[in-house]
């Protein structure tokens, strides 16, 4: 059930109706049942896995709260983390490790191959679950008493398959002190749902067609301009796709009385890679900061340790996305760029001054990010190198994007700049009903004339 299908909207309407028509005490059970139904609609065979992980971390949380600090407490933490990482590692990395081992042992590539289907959203819910256990261990979060509450935290359907990665304290605050959504929440939720749908159907899926055609046949699409346009198309696809999904997830949560954190803040307007990571997939980058970078030492042990920690964090962040050397390189590339920026910047803080230099910095950052997407999107390392070769050493080639694609990009850029400087989204929420309705109507119209309607293109991050 993709978010951009009629089936899903029917499901959402039924869930909302049941949720609000039921006595308050039953509502979380309805959400839980709906969430398992949603997950089961993808592949019901993974529900036991989800339940197992839920049970392990729920029990670990309860133990951690009871056990006094010391080695036993640490052992419980390690046990829980091992279980989470074990499942994640098996499902996500077994074949990757197997093929590399086969290469080292000079055996056929599929010598250790297992036909493993990746459970949907496993990277997201294991990270969410691990952060809960770590928070309980650190004493920053009370262990949850009711397993139903914990199960709902893990499988809440708006963010189950692709985030945002929600922190336990925020989720349980909303759950335990649940308040009906205010009118403002409902207005915001509807606007976000519509905006997300527009981003996905009218923008992401249109660029996806170009990017898919390009990466399906890189050899047949030689040329510098061709390669750059194919990669930029993917850059647009992944941004609109993922941020569109996130907007819809946040919007749905608002309609149910939950408040998710922002996951994107106009990342392609970033003036540096550091700034980019403050704007891109914020729930993951803050998770990596809090549970990996800072525990590794962060920037507390001198420059070289800071660079090392940045690189390790980004390498693992890359690996989180997928089991291939391409993701490792993508993470390493960003880690290296972050370190390089640190070297050049020294101890000066990043400032977001919109001066005459800003557009130039933003264009350079955009270019660097696009180069990174090559590794993210290409099928394998040889293809990545081929694309990069075309981008920098290829013949002139031709533009894969039609003029109307470029017009869509310019509209998106204008809206992003306007949002950055004028907060148009908030102004629409504040405006009289007619202006609010006009904004919705324009988005609907945008879906009508640009939306990819018949081909259900899956969200990019669903594969993670």
């Amino acid at each position, binding site marked *: 059930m993709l978010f951009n299908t009629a089936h899903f909207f029917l499901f959402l309407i039924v869930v909302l109706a049941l949720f609000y028509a039921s006595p308050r005490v039953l509502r979380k059970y309805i959400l839980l049942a709906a969430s398992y139904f949603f997950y089961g609609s993808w592949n019901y065979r993974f529900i036991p896995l989800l339940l197992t992980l839920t049970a392990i971390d729920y029990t670990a949380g309860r133990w951690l709260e009871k056990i006094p600090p010391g080695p036993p407490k640490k052992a419980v933490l390690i046990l829980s983390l091992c279980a989470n990482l074990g499942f994640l590692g098996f499902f996500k990395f077994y074949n990757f490790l197997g093929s590399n081992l086969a290469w080292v042992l000079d055996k056929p590539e599929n010598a250790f191959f297992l036909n493993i289907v990746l459970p949907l959203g496993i990277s997201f819910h294991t990270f969410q679950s691990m952060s809960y256990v770590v928070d309980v261990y650190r004493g920053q979060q009370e262990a949850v008493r009711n397993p139903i509450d914990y199960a709902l935290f893990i499988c809440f359907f708006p963010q189950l398959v692709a985030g945002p990665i929600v922190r336990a304290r925020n989720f349980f605050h909303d759950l335990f002190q649940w308040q009906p959504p205010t009118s403002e929440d*409902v207005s915001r939720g509807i606007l976000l749902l519509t905006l997300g749908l527009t981003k996905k159907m009218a923008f992401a899926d249109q660029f996806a067609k170009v990017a898919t055609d390009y990466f399906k046949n890189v050899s047949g699409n030689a040329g510098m301009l061709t390669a750059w346009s194919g990669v930029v198309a993917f850059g647009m696809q992944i941004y609109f796709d993922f941020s569109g999904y996130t907007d819809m997830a946040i919007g749905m949560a608002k309609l149910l009385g939950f408040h998710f954190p*922002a996951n994107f803040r106009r990342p392609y307007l970033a003036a540096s890679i550091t700034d980019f990571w403050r704007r891109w997939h914020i729930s993951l980058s803050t998770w990596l900061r809090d549970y990996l970078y800072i525990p590794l030492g962060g920037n507390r042990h001198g420059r070289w340790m800071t660079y090392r920690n940045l690189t390790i964090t980004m390498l693992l962040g890359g690996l989180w996305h997928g089991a291939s050397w391409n993701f490792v390189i993508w993470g390493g590339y960003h880690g290296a760029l972050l370190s390089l920026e640190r070297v050049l910047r020294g101890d000066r803080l990043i400032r977001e001054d919109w001066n005459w230099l800003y557009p130039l910095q933003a264009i350079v950052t955009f270019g660097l990010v696009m180069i990174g997407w090559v590794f993210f999107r290409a099928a394998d390392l040889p293809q990545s190198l081929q694309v990069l070769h075309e981008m920098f050493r290829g013949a002139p080639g031709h533009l894969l994007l039609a003029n109307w694609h470029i017009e869509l990009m310019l509209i998106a850029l204008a809206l992003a700049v306007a949002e950055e400087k004028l907060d148009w989204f908030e102004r629409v929420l504040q405006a009289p009903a007619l202006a609010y309705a006009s904004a919705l*109507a324009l988005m609907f*119209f945008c879906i009508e*004339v*640009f939306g990819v*309607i018949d081909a259900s293109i899956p969200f990019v991050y669903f594969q993670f």
Partner: protein
Amino acid sequence: MATEPSPRLETTPARKPRRIALALLIACLGLFGLDALLFRTHMYASILEPDSSAGLVELILWREKRAQRTAGDNLVVTLGNSRMGYVPKVVDLRPQQTGYRIRTAGVAGSDPRLWYYMLRDLDPTARRYRAIVIGVDDYDDEDRAFNPDDNIGALHYCITRLRWSDAIEFAQSFHSREFQWEAFRGAVLKGIALQSDIQAFLSHPLKRIAYVRLCHRGWPDWTYDYVESSRSMAGLRIDWSKLEATYPPGMTEEQKQTARDWLIHEPNPQTGRLAHFFRTWLGRIADRYRESRTKIIFVRLPRGPIPRPDYLVKKRSSSIRELASRPNVILANEHLFDCLERPELFKDAVHLNRDGIDLFSPMIADEVARILGPPGAK
């Protein structure tokens, strides 16, 4: 595009639930309003790509409406697909002999579903024409491999002519659920069906406008001056017992495939879908002119370079003969064009070539004049 409240604007005034519902309703009305403003007025129709299905229909309607102004009272219009649509000029060359101005509004690739919607706008009072001549493949119904009732391409031909009130019946006229939904969706929100055209327009708006203007200057003459290919099928031989053909030299694989699809095939299962389709749409045309002075004349077009033997043709009904029982519906002589069913008069398995058209056009003009009688007669 933000998702979080900004610090300086976080005190959003509460919008009451009823007002949210009202805003949603206004948003939906706004969507339909925008769609109507752009796609249900002349605004977008006037800049449709002339070479697209919808653009071609618009150009033909524009040309024929213009012609109505100067054509006098004895005006006849012909309708049909490419077998009829490619011969406008020669048909119209004999007004002195016949006393009738015969225009053609035939559209390549079209079917009776489009003809109904075209006629509705071409002749809103249902009294403008002395006769509507409809060229058909046969007076009997023979289901072929291709079912016109499930041709979703019809949506793109009809799109500019559809009204909101047509949405349900237009959608229901398709056979499969999938196409019914697609047709309904397109009829209600035309922007969905016109997506490709809009995107192409946005890519080169000035070029499009210039091309549309060019077409408006010269298209009627281009189409009326069009000279059909002189290529012929002379040398075509068909062994009907083996369903094998010897093709004349130079035929492309595509042309051979057309011959196989159109002529050289086993009978298809007769489902009655074609009969139902004809009864529906030709019936609606006949209904529209029930009380009118306008005659509906059906003409059986030359069937092909070599007609299929009777034992390969399965027919269970004859919807057009049924229609002929109505007072203003007339069938032209069924065998009038049998003499044209020769390989040397066809450019492929379906279409007449230049020589074929030169013979066909005066024949049809004379037949129409014969059926209608002298222009002054009642």
